[in-house]
């Protein structure tokens, strides 16, 4: 690493998250929070309470992940007989129907992405708390991917909304969304907030000694 690495924080500057404007850290703590002179957003040296906020959201997501997978996301009722689908059984059905490519997409978006996201965020939090010096650049990339990819887990929810809009032939076939769908949607939204709450600059703040 070059010895001339200086962060904004070390130069007593705050970078605005909305518009990138740099401003000096207010000398005296004024009442309330600092405001960006250019875009009027609240600015902070680091996202406030990043670790505890991300932990809280993450734990909530872990808990909700259980009903999200155990409860049916929807029930297909045809000729009076109901068949309940969970996230996993939906994927299995696609495989049995021979639709392997789309089964893979759904498997990836609804199972691999949420699980990986939970694991990665947990790892990033622990690595910051234990002041890990290991591969900060790769950890930052990991964070960047986690933040971008999370929204794709919503596929199942949108699929259900299309199905209930199309299939409503009372006697022949209807589709009822289940509580699993609500829990699953909650997991996705909460992990999205958790990812937003995490501040990747904390990874680099621990690297100071290595300058």
């Amino acid at each position: 690493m070059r010895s001339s690495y200086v962060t904004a924080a070390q130069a007593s500057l705050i970078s605005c998250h909305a518009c990138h404007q740099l401003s000096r850290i207010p000398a005296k703590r004024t009442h309330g929070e600092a405001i960006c002179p250019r875009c009027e957003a609240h600015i902070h040296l680091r996202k406030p309470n990043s670790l505890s906020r991300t932990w809280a959201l993450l734990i909530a997501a872990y808990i909700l992940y259980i009903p999200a997978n155990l409860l049916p996301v929807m029930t297909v009722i045809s000729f009076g007989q109901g068949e309940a689908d969970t996230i996993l059984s939906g994927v299995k059905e696609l495989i049995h129907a021979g639709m392997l490519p789309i089964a893979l997409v759904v498997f990836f978006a609804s199972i691999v992405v949420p699980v990986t996201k939970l694991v990665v965020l947990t790892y990033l939090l622990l690595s910051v708390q234990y002041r890990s010096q290991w591969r900060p650049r790769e950890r930052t990339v990991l964070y960047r991917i986690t933040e971008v990819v999370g929204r794709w887990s919503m596929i199942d929810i949108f699929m259900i909304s299309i199905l209930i809009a199309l299939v409503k032939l009372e006697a022949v076939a209807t589709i009822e969304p289940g509580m699993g769908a609500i829990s699953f949607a909650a997991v996705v939204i909460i992990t999205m907030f958790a990812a937003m709450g995490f501040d990747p600059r904390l990874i680099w703040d621990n690297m100071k000694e290595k300058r």
Partner: protein
Amino acid sequence: MEMSIAAGRLVIACHECDLLHRIHPLRDGERATCSRCGAGLWAKKRDSFEHTILLTVTSLILFVLANVFPFMTFELHGRVQTSHLSTGVVEFFDRGMWELGLLVLAASILFPALKILGMLYVLVPLEMNRRPWKAAPVFRMVAQCQTWAMMDVYLLGVIVAVIKLADLATLVPGVAIYSFGALILTLAAADSTLDPHAVWEKMEDLP
């Protein structure tokens, strides 16, 4: 300006690792990335305002089409069922699952609409050298919509649903579904021509 330093250089901090960079003002089409973590610092776009406004106006038209025309028609045993983009939302509310109704409404209609309108509200007056009222908070909101407008994910959901139903019934795509697909492309293009730095700088220059 991002704190001008002597010789026309800019100082900019990386969003992801907080490292300070001194960069030369970029030429059109040039990109600056963080030397330490690789995050993008700034990408300067050519004719950003005109291109983005044009693409956003196109998106607005497509958005209206996608919401007005039928999305898809479902045929089974001679019974025909036509659905619109908003039908799924209504069905969720009818079943008392308002949480999911709100979510789908927000992701497929509300946030895309806010994004399109917010972008036009800020960019069109700025292009005419006027600063609209509350320009800064509106433009910040536009950036927030980025995460929550999920039309691309929605379209993939449509594809999965269509594949699941293909054996069961006849599905006929409507005008709205094509408009929706095109809207995803024009909005993505608008995102790629938008230069937020240029917008903030222009805003700052205007009283």
